[in-house]
């Protein structure tokens, strides 16, 4: 319990620091971005109005307090270009990113865990000689390039999958949930999710294999053999369960970093997610939107880092249940 509270306090501290850093970044960078962001087409009056409405006419400390205050209320300001609340724009993009990330991670980890466990028993075989370099190659390839390859092949050359977007243009749905579960959405999801999964699977695969090899050398595995337990019981109940601890942690960490790391995949597939919002906001000098998107991506990352820690503690009784000696 104490650990839990401590970890939350730590996450809160990091979040605060990240928010502060973001604030300073967007205001103190050389070249005064506040001016850059207000485009030339604005009249003097509009500019003054805008500055005021964004609180940019006030001294920096005051701006900072206002900024923190509105962040706490979930108010991320209004987009320069879209003239809509930033939060609305982000919340509209969030489900797309979440669907892409979670689908890809689940595929990647399901495959990686099984293949990694299998490879742990294939030491010194030809399979290992092929699989390990292959896994390393997928880790070394730029995600967007993997996406480009799959696109040119499965979408452009063979015409199996759509090449862009999350839904056929102009389609209407009764609810967000109906959209996310529609066949159309899932059809669009396949290619980007596969690309991301291909990029991500190397980590759980190599990690699972490495920890599995380590665990298989542990004395309790030898004991399980001495007990005459079935191979299945030894591998699944004892080896895999212990080996899964770090993999589960990696999953949570991966969830956090993929939310923001999807930027390039979302660009390749024109996937309307958070990363795309960030990129186009930065490119379009839409500073409240860029700031908001950045903070949201960072918040998910910090949150998932925390979840990863707590998950590990929860899964591993050696951490969660203090020693009593």
């Amino acid at each position, binding site marked *: 319990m104490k650990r839990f509270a401590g970890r939350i306090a*730590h996450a809160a*501290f*990091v*979040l605060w*620091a*990240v928010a502060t*850093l973001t604030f300073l*970044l*967007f205001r103190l*960078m*050389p*070249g005064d*971005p506040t001016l850059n962001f207000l485009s030339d087409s604005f009249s003097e009056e509009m500019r003054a109005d805008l500055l005021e409405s964004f609180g940019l006419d006030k001294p920096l400390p005051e701006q900072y307090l206002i900024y923190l205050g509105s962040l706490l209320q979930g108010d991320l300001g209004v987009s320069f270009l879209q003239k809509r609340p930033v939060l609305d724009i982000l919340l509209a993009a969030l489900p797309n990113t979440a669907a892409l990330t979670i689908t890809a991670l689940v595929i990647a980890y399901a495959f990686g865990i099984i293949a990694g466990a299998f490879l742990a028993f294939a030491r010194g075989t030809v399979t290992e000689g092929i699989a390990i370099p292959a896994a*390393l*190659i997928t*880790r*070394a*390839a*730029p*995600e*967007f*390039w993997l996406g*480009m*390859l799959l*696109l*040119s092949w499965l979408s*452009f*050359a063979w015409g199996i999958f759509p*090449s862009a977007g999350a839904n056929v243009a102009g389609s209407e749905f009764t609810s967000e949930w109906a959209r996310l579960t529609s066949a159309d959405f899932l059809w669009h999801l396949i290619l980007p999710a596969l690309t991301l999964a291909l990029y991500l699977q190397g*980590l759980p695969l*190599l*990690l699972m*294999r*490495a920890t599995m090899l380590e665990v298989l050398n542990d004395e309790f595995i030898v004991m399980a053999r001495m007990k005459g337990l079935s191979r299945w019981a030894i591998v699944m109940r004892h080896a895999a369960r212990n080996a899964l601890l*770090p993999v589960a*942690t*990696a999953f949570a*960490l991966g969830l956090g*970093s993929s*939310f*923001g*790391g999807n*930027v*390039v995949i979302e*660009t*390749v597939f024109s996937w309307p997610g958070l*990363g795309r919002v*960030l*990129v186009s906001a*930065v*490119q379009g*000098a839409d500073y409240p939107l*860029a700031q908001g*998107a*950045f903070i949201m*991506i*960072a918040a998910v*990352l*910090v949150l998932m*880092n925390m979840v990863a820690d707590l998950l590990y503690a929860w899964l591993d009784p050696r951490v969660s249940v203090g020693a009593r000696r």
Partner: protein
Amino acid sequence: MPGASAMRRRPLPGFVGSGLGFLRKQPFAVAGLAIYLTFILLAIFADQIATHDPREILFRGAYRVARYLPPSATHYLGTTAGGRDVFSQLVHGTRSALQVGVTAAFFVVVIGTLLGLLSGYLGGWVDRVIMRISDIILGLPFLPFVLVISALTRPGTTTLVASVALMLWPNTARVIRSQVLSLRERGWVEAARVTGCSTPRIIFVHIAPQVAPLAALYGSIAVGWAILTEASASFLGFGDPNAISWGLMLQDAFANQALSRGVWTWFVPPGLCIVLLVLAGFLVSRGSEKLLFPKLGD
């Protein structure tokens, strides 16, 4: 948890290695070094190897730009939508890739090792401050942060290298720190302290050489990360628009319908080069698999 302890169990061979034994025991590392060497030679002799000026717009006849030419004896990999020679761009791209990779890795290693040494050896508030800062950096999303920095300053190679170094040093620092913590407990460090060695001397003369192999490993991974980051940022339009880099080539190809036109000789080779160079870093560092996952930290 992983990294450092795994390293301690399996002492690393010196990088120079002891000749044949090294070749036989570390085939992965040898393959990695061979790839590095090939690309370094490519970069040095780029002007001789390239068949054209990579920036030159080529013409067919008097006024027709030589767009989308298929591979031929003059253009090994054809030409781009802008009428430039793909092969020559590819060869010259090696320079910027190595430049970005090596400078970023250098700063990651220097900053990470220095702060890791100080943090681990001095402990106390120095340790707390450094670790807090690294916590905060690990809370920043990597690529988005690089993009925002690029957008708010001048986009270009310097900005990219700086932000990669800024984002990656904590992983190195943490591993070095835990290594130093265990070294500190060894007898000879204590002996050096008792015999009146100054703190800087102990840190830099006695401890630093011990952690150097580990730092080098993290460096070789940082090379890969920096190259991947440069490629991603260039692809998203945040690179140096005047550079000749693999990332920009891919962006160029993507933006000019190379995919729908099926001009795979344009967009496959740059990606392959990136894969090879990043892979080389992984192979060199394969002494410990866990080092491949800097995000897992310790």
